């Protein structure tokens, strides 16, 4: 029973970290109707930014978000403006996959050139040290996972507030529902797209920081991440922010529980569960037909 509870705790806390990383991916899909394959390497880039700030400027990674979030936002806007904005027509979605993949390869190459392949981790003595944890129901939960959980809640709540409580959010939702109609009523769709892509990438700053503090990472880490993030947003429902949170926790919890029995089956069982859910709910747990039909 203790092992089961530990697995559930690991699943929820670890899932929140993945939700933090997947939130931007699902937001970008929901608004722009493209799958940002580069999201995994952008998380890794954000992790390296936090790492570099903490090593070279001795800046606390949590405080460093004040720098990394805007930097990642600007990078997202630039990527959208330079590469995504130009894609038009029926082949736009397919071409965007190629473009995002190219962006990922460029970023990966740059990271290898700058940091090499040696794995590193981000250190936060108050969050990752042996004493930085709470003892609950017989198991330990590191502060870094609590921080990750908190950041996930804040990021997802922030995106919700942006979408449903601001004028710009209305512009985003209008663009999500019908970009042509939105343009006709005076919404600057290009600006909405660029800012949304920027927000989607900015969220990775927090996700990358927590990922880097809980895992040793190198420029190659993006590949494993993107496959997991994609499965999370598909399970949660493409475009659903809350769905990403639930799906991430579900995915990691299933894996952790199966790990008790046989680790080699953990990923298999998760993907089997994913197929079953999609068979029963083709749009994912919280996906809307309107989003898919766009």
């Amino acid at each position: 029973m203790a092992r089961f509870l530990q697995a559930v705790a690991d699943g929820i806390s670890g899932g929140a970290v993945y939700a933090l990383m997947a939130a931007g991916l699902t937001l970008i899909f929901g608004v722009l109707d493209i799958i940002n394959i580069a999201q995994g390497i952008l998380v890794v880039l954000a992790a390296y930014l936090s790492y570099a700030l903490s090593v070279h400027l001795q800046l606390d990674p949590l405080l460093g978000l004040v720098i990394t979030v805007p930097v990642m936002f600007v990078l997202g806007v630039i990527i959208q403006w330079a590469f995504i904005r130009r894609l038009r027509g029926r082949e736009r979605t397919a071409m965007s996959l190629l473009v995002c993949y190219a962006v990922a390869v460029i970023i990966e190459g740059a990271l290898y050139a700058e940091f090499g392949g040696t794995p590193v981790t981000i250190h936060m003595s108050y969050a990752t040290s042996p004493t930085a944890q709470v003892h609950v129901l017989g198991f330990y939960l590191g502060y870094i996972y609590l921080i990750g959980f908190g950041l996930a809640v804040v990021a997802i709540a922030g995106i919700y507030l942006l979408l449903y409580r601001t004028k710009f959010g209305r512009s985003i939702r209008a663009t999500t529902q019908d970009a042509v109609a939105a343009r006709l009523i005076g919404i600057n769709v290009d600006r909405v797209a660029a800012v949304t892509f920027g927000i989607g990438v900015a969220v990775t700053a927090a996700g990358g920081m927590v990922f880097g503090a809980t895992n040793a990472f190198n420029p190659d880490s993006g590949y494993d991440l993107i496959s997991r993030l994609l499965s999370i947003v598909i399970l949660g429902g493409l475009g659903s922010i809350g769905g990403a949170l639930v799906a991430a926790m579900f995915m990691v919890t299933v894996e952790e529980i199966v790990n008790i029995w046989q680790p080699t089956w953990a990923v298999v069982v998760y993907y089997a569960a994913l197929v079953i859910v999609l068979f029963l709910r083709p749009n994912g747990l919280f996906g809307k037909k309107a989003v898919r039909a766009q």
Partner: protein
Amino acid sequence: MRVRNARFLVVGITAAVLSAALAACSSSSSGSKGTATKAPILIGASLSLTGGFSADGQAFMRGYQLWAHDVNAAGGLLGRQVKLDIKNDASQPNQAVTNYQSLINVDHVNLLFGPFSSLLTLPTVQVAHRYGFAFVEGAGGAPSVFATKLDNLFDVSLPVDASTLPLIDYINALPVNQRPKTAAFPTSNDPFTQPQIQFAQHMLSTDGVKSVYSKVFPAEPTQYKGIADQVAASKAQMVVLGSVDVPTVAAFTQAFVQAHYQPKIFIATAGPDQGAAYVKAVGGQGNADGVMVPNAWYGGSLNTLSRKMVAEYIAKYGGTPSGINADVAEAYSVGEVMAQAVTATKGLDNSKIIQYLHANTMSSVQGPVKFDAVGQNLAATAFVFQWQRADFLQVLPPGSGSATVVYPKPAWGK
């Protein structure tokens, strides 16, 4: 008419003299340059410069490059400079196969060096065999590699299966009341790790150490925390981790630290041998202290060749002996062994090189090298190394050159 003929004669003689002079100059010029104008010996290798094995692959590349630099500084091989042709396989076996085919058929290399890991050696040695190339490698020591029984395979490093034997002997030599009573055996699904873990589990079980956790986890990167938490929950007094890289050991270490789990012995098949990269990834010296790894080489080795290589490495890349990745020595050994075969056979005929490698004993920074029929280095000695504060020390087998084992392992972070 006579005048015209005379002019032709003068022009003809002048042209002939000039041609002869130019030819003489040209001949003299090439003669004076000697070996410098000979084409370099091209040596091809595929390495994992990106992907899951990138840290090892890049260390291997430094080892190959350091060897080539040293050879060229000493006048080259057979009087010819050595040139490396290294391709990136991104840690993918299929890409490694493609790379070796390209090295042989497109780049027309003279010699081949092996890739990193048993996983990539297994398919690539067969490509080399098809084309009759000697395949000298330093990181393909899994039993499945030797099971191919290819006569062109030569692994200069320690065969992996019995690598933990010195530790097992050490445990058996402990007073009964001090021996660990339980052990956990988590291992990656990899041809390099599984034979070592199975061997250790079998031997320790025979010696009365109870196995309380024995699971195989996927070789692809995954969530390690849950698996590590299960190991911690087993409360095993000893952990034998089948790892292929630093991130795996780092993830287990981090989870053990957070679970306040303090095994008496923590040995990992790979990762802790990667010097400063390992210490950095596990969060500092306090989390590395007491951790062990089996291997055949370390930076403080008293081997004369090794000391020379270590000095050259530090001069070129900086750092300390303890911080040098064992992959560097494995790669350097590949070059040394190939060089001895080429020098002895006085040529680049791979069939003669293969014959020589099977018949002779050679030396390397890792120690003596003597191959059996399937390419295992029978002369390699298994050592166990342990991090003790800032030093990475040879601790087993006990005796000359070995430091005392720190047992039980100090608490994390102390």
